[in-house]
């Protein structure tokens, strides 16, 4: 099987006047079609950098990144990027926020707009369509941010700790929702997180990064794909031992 996204010995160094910071060092991995991979690593190790590189908004100082076998040199419409915070535009209604990407890529066709409306309805935001972001709760806002990304029908979805600002309850529910959406739309996902249990419950594989400069410490297989939802995965007997092992490796 051919990988959708490949990191090939990627290094990334930030230069500022006062010093240079190496964020990634010789990082290599493959992400396959339909797969859900998480990236787990200590704070500040370079996880956001990894996603920015994959999205094409940042260029690696060494090595190369391939999307569908082609080198990534600029942003691609096949890649959706969901940032650490929802970044909804306060002056746009929910509906207008969802349509943002389509407006920018000049893809406001009837079909695409219908697709957005379907997503809004399906994910329980229909009655908030004409509200402004300020009137929504954190969980709802994050869901809107996800729909805004999905509106562009990405093949690969990059998620940067999308749940970190939410309380535990909301977080568990949203994890289930997002997981279901991603699997249903057949999207390949790369999720960055601090949260070990979130990584185990959501993903097929987990890339464990070392402290900065981030190298691949180990690739972990969760072997939990037979459970349909993250909540059910949390109840699997292998969940606790996996957690313990990863916890030791990360800290």
């Amino acid at each position, binding site marked *: 099987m051919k990988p959708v996204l490949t990191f090939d010995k990627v290094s990334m160094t930030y230069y500022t006047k006062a010093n240079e910071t190496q964020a990634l060092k010789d990082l290599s991995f493959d992400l396959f079609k339909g797969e859900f991979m998480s990236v787990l690593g200590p704070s500040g190790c370079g996880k956001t950098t990894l996603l*920015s590189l994959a999205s094409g908004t940042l260029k690696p100082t060494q090595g190369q990144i391939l999307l569908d076998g082609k080198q990534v040199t600029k942003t691609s419409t096949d890649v959706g*990027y969901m*940032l650490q915070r929802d970044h909804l*535009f*306060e*002056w746009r209604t929910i509906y207008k926020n969802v349509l943002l990407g389509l407006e*920018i890529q000049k893809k406001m066709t009837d079909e695409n707009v219908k697709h957005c409306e379907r997503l809004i309805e399906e994910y329980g935001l229909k009655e908030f369509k004409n*509200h402004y972001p*300020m*009137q929504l709760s954190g969980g709802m806002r994050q869901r809107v941010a996800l729909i805004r990304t999905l509106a562009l029908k990405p093949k690969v979805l990059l998620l940067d700790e999308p749940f970190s600002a939410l309380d535990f309850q909301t977080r568990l529910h949203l994890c289930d929702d997002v997981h279901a959406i991603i699997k249903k739309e057949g999207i390949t996902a790369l999720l960055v997180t601090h949260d070990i249990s979130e990584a185990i419950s959501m993903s097929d594989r987990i890339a464990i990064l070392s402290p900065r400069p981030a190298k691949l410490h180990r690739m972990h297989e969760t072997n939990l794909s037979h459970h349909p939802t993250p909540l059910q995965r949390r109840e699997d007997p292998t969940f606790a031992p996996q957690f313990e092992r990863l916890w030791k490796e990360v800290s």
Partner: protein
Amino acid sequence: MKNTLFSPMHKRYVKKLKRNKIVITCAQIGVLVVFLCLWELLAQVGFIDAFLMSSPTRIWRTLADLYLNGQLFYHVWVSLFETLLGFLIGTVGGTAIAVVLWWSKPLRDVLQPYIVVLNSLPKIALGPIIIVWAGTGQKAIVTMAVLISIIVTIITMLGGFLQTSPEKILLLESMNANKMQIFFKLVFPANLSTLASCLKINVGMAWIGSIMGEYPVSKAGLGYLIVYGGQVFKMDLVMACTIVLCLLAGVMYFLVALLEKFFVKWKS
């Protein structure tokens, strides 16, 4: 969400808000009335010299005279025209320059010290230069009004543009947006409230510019009347014109504030 069924508690709360507002409005009017009465009274009994300090009735009579011989609206119109023109050119021009400077970082870096110096310079010092270059007509006065408002506009708007969340810009970039789209979809709408406060500041700035411009050279306008009144010791005229100026600036500010409400609907 609009709630149509209100609890009695909510009714009481709204009532209290309303009552507060009425009390404050009454107090505001009260202050004005007391001030005017006291002024009039002290002038009538001769405690203050009405020739130097004028008095409400004398001001009123002066205004009525000005109105009856057609002078009032003539001078008001002259000043208002200069101010509005200066306001418009200053705001639109300043915003346009701010856009250009946001767009080009090299240009911004090069021009920054000049803008800072121009900002700290008291623009009135440029008066003679402007008169020599633009003549003594309305052109010079409008130039002064533009000069005073444009620099503040550039600095305020550019500051707002540059503070746009870099992560929101990253989000748009990840969607393949070009710089033009980033400006029109994000940077400009995010700064509508900056623009609104800029407009409010510029109401004051444009009036300062036009009145100061009228002082040395003009043959008409409220600034002209004020200077003329001062020279011939007609304090009634000076006071009357000052009050008209207050009213005009107040109304203009109010209109701009109304515009702001319309701009930033989402805040309510």
